């Protein structure tokens, strides 16, 4: 294997670092006992989570009940549930335009729409790619790597690359004009902008999910298919009856991850479409970002209230999916 030197080096480096705290850790273990060592092992990670995720979430929740423009929580006057009241201040809940914070509701709706479509497209593309890559094809390693390549790019670069292609003066329009067509304003049309937002995010991430599914496919024993062939089961039926059920645990991981990432989508799409045209691709995270950062008077309170609502939404989504996991009996 060509990667042997790399892994050797890694191993040596890892071993060196790992041996350093050996003696003090043994001492700790003697004092508190082996059974409690798990807490020691988990502690650093939980401390980091606590300090940089849970504490900030707490501050965010506190922010959402305060007003004013001060940054430090101690300097912010409490306003009770006013921020939430602002978010929910709608004359007609079926029409975001009637709401005080119409961008919040539009953002929610757009994120929901984006997530639903993107999840299905992403899963289908990843599945198809994984199935093809699982075939006995030449240069399989190369092709797998090709699909993984965009995963390595930063969202800023992903957006830049595609903006360069999709802009009115871009490569794609040049091709269309070259073939005698009229240039299409891809990012100025609500439908097209949404299409490309989804396309680009699938482009950027499908490689990751493909690999997860590929891992699942490779774990399926071949003799199952041979048996099915003996029985004369047709290919499509084999796929539905055999492959998909056996792949279910991996599919579920993919589903959960794609859903969470979909709702969180921000920087790629923001850098690509700026949320436009109008507010056609403005996601909920963009609303939060704009409210807290990009407006002249930062409204941390309102942004925090919107974050809390988004957090609750994600929680409900994930719990539903976890419940599904339990029901299907997969781990």
């Amino acid at each position: 294997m060509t990667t042997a030197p790399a892994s050797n080096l890694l191993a040596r480096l890892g071993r060196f670092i790992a041996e350093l705290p050996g003696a003090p850790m043994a001492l700790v273990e003697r004092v508190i006992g082996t059974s409690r060592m798990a807490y020691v092992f988990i502690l650093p990670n939980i401390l980091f989570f606590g300090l940089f995720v849970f504490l900030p979430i707490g501050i965010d929740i506190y922010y959402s009940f305060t007003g004013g423009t001060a940054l430090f929580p101690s300097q912010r006057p409490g306003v009770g549930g006013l921020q939430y009241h602002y978010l929910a201040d709608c004359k007609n809940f079926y029409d975001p335009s009637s709401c005080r914070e119409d961008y919040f509701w539009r953002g929610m709706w757009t994120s929901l729409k984006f997530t639903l479509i993107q999840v299905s497209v992403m899963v289908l593309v990843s599945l198809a790619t994984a199935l093809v890559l699982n075939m006995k094809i030449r240069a399989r390693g190369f092709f797998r790597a090709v699909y993984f390549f965009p995963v390595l790019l930063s969202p800023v670069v992903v957006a830049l690359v595609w903006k360069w292609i999709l802009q009115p003066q871009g490569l794609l329009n040049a091709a269309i004009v070259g073939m005698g067509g009229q240039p299409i304003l891809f990012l100025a049309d609500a439908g097209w902008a949404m299409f490309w937002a989804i396309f680009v995010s699938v482009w950027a991430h499908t490689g990751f999910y493909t690999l997860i599914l590929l891992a699942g496919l490779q774990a399926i024993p071949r003799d199952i298919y041979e048996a099915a062939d003996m029985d004369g089961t047709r290919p499509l039926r084999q796929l539905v009856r055999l492959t998909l059920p056996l792949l279910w645990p991996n599919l579920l991981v993919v589903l959960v991850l794609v859903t969470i990432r979909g709702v969180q989508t921000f920087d790629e799409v923001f850098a690509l479409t700026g949320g436009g045209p109008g507010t056609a691709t403005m996601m909920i995270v963009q609303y939060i970002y704009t409210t807290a950062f990009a407006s002249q008077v930062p409204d941390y309170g309102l942004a925090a209230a919107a974050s809390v609502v988004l957090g609750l939404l994600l929680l409900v989504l994930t719990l539903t999916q976890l419940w599904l996991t339990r029901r299907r009996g997969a781990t």
Partner: protein
Amino acid sequence: MMSPLALLRQRRNPGRIGFSDVLAYIYLAVGVFLMFGPVVWLVLSSFKTRSNLDEFPPTFLPLAQQSVAVKGYDSKLPLYNVTMPDGSKRVLAQVRRIGVISQLVDPAAPQTIIKVNMDKRTALRHLGLDWHNYEHPLRHFNFGRYLWNSVFVTVVATLVTLLINSMAAYALSIHEFRGKNFFLVAVIATLMVPITIILVPVFVVVNEIGLDNSLWAVILPGAATPTGVFLLRQYMLTMPRELIEAARMDKASEWQIYARIVMPLALPALAVLTIFSVMWRWNEFLWPLVVLSKSETYTLQIGLNAFQGDLQTQWNYLLAMTVVALIPIALVFVFLQRFITSGIANTGMK
């Protein structure tokens, strides 16, 4: 959905190239084109001059105006392909243009001025890589400093991440203890929080700790990653328990089991996390932008984006610097691509 059909048919007739294989290869060829094409276009564009960049329709390759020294003129004159009134074509050098009338001369006979309408001429150009796009920014910016900061952040953050994530994963996979489910749920919960929405509170926390404006402010907040913990835990769950039990019988300490048995066995998963962590850290933009305000601590991504102004973006420099920042990622890709794909596939993630 031809591919699953292809998959199965292919299994039944090994060694025969059938219709399904052709389809699969077409699918893959389109994939290569779609995945690499945009990046190739970015790289080509980064070598274009500013006016070549703005052109529509765009030229595929970077082109530069061809010019020639003509007797009697101090500076070189640009060359044009000209369609003459009689329909013949000539290559002429333009002296000047007044309104829509272009004044040209034949470089061989520079005495006579030939006047043609400007839409009867097209610029004569040749392939020219504009290295200036790379040279200027690299010379005028503290590139070495930014590079060092980025490398420092990437390396240190990755080591911290590997250490604390693997420790947590070890506890969550090998041990049974009270509150394990609570910790698992806590880790899942962090997966759901996008950094954008807690940016301000994290800034407040970092500020209160006194980490602001140091590279540690970039390194520490993202060191504990839910993805890392999960990836490693899933992998460790598949390890043979007998090994660990045997080590416990031999009175090995927990740390020795973790360091000498579990970690070496988890190498493929650790390698995958390394790749991810390097990628995350190298590409990080918004958080360093907010937390670092002095150029001694700027990372490459911030320094190189300085070409995005308020009213204008200097695209030629921005594209060139984007390519520069891509080089390490491309190297990771070239040298570790086998490791990436086989590593993640082996990790299981199920």
